[in-house]
């Protein structure tokens, strides 16, 4: 979560949440820009292929097996 991808309000503050939601509904350009930025972040940081590569790196370290031993 960052100002580029979302709008943050203080925890539990329903009035601030309402204001933020109403403002976003009224501002399509800002809303679409944040949606696009959030999609980019999801692809860059949360894609399963990237996570699996990180996990395989960990498995290789803890097993001592080299990447070459991964079945093709």
């Amino acid at each position, binding site marked *: *979560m960052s100002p580029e*991808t*979302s*709008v*943050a*309000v*203080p*925890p*539990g*503050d*329903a*009035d601030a*949440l*309402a204001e*933020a*939601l*109403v403002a*976003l*509904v009224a501002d399509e350009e800002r*809303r*679409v820009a*944040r*949606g*696009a930025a*959030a*999609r980019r972040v*999801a*692809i860059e*940081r*949360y*894609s*399963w*292929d*990237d*996570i*699996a*590569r*990180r*996990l*395989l790196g*960990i*498995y*290789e*370290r*803890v*097993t001592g*097996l080299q990447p070459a*031993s*991964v*079945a*093709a």
Partner: protein
Amino acid sequence: MKVGIVVPFSWSFWGAVVEHAELQAAALRRLGADVRLLMGNDPPGQFTRALHPRVGRHGTPPPDVIPVGRSVIVPANGSLPNVIISPRSILRIKRVLAEERFDVLHLHEPMTPIPCIAALALWDGPMVGTHHASGDLGWMRIATPVLGFLAERLDHRIAVSAEARASAQRWLPGEYEVIPNGVLIPEAVDAAGREHRFVFAGRHEPRKGLQVLLRAWPEVHRRTGARLRVAGADPTTGSTCSASSARTTSRRSSRRRRPSWRRRSGARASGWCSRARSRARLRSSPRTSPGTAT
């Protein structure tokens, strides 16, 4: 490389960790790893109906899933997971570990009985553990003094978020690498032509902040005329995978004072939730830890 992913919950009942493990297995296979999932299984029948009030996945698990026992519902940390506590699962785990000869085991919620605890106690190969839960983790109050030493067997510890890391570290101090839950990303989502609707996605419990959104909603509806759709699991039903929709409206403008709920489960809920998100104008996730409005 042959990887055994151990999940202490049942394949028959969708939940966040089960789904995570299945997507993890699929992603590892795409990179060439040979992966098996060791988890519970509750075949449909009278016994399962008695133990599990909600409808689960019927049928036989796919060949890459190795069933290690039946599950029961155990309230824990704001949800009702289907945990395997049958002592017989210890023998099954022992047999599977001997037969499959894994290079590495990856344990999800490693301190949850019984498959993960059994793997920690019985297997002497490399092990990685992922901690998912955050919050008080009341079970750890009991488990840590008795079984905490087994966590030392883990060669690498992962937490799915900074919150999960802090919760785990409270009971099991040490280094944790944060690797988040992955998300399935649709090929393309059109930002135009969205329905005039907001969507909340998350379990209906205080930490996820639905109550904050519902307090804000009359004002938002009055000023925008938008509708609200709520998607997520209701812990009071024991359903960790159902989705409900609530059509809430302003009290002044509606004859209907209460939201109407529709329940969905399993794959239907998952698909419905994805579609709801890709059609909505805004997603609101007002967690009671630092809150967000989009």
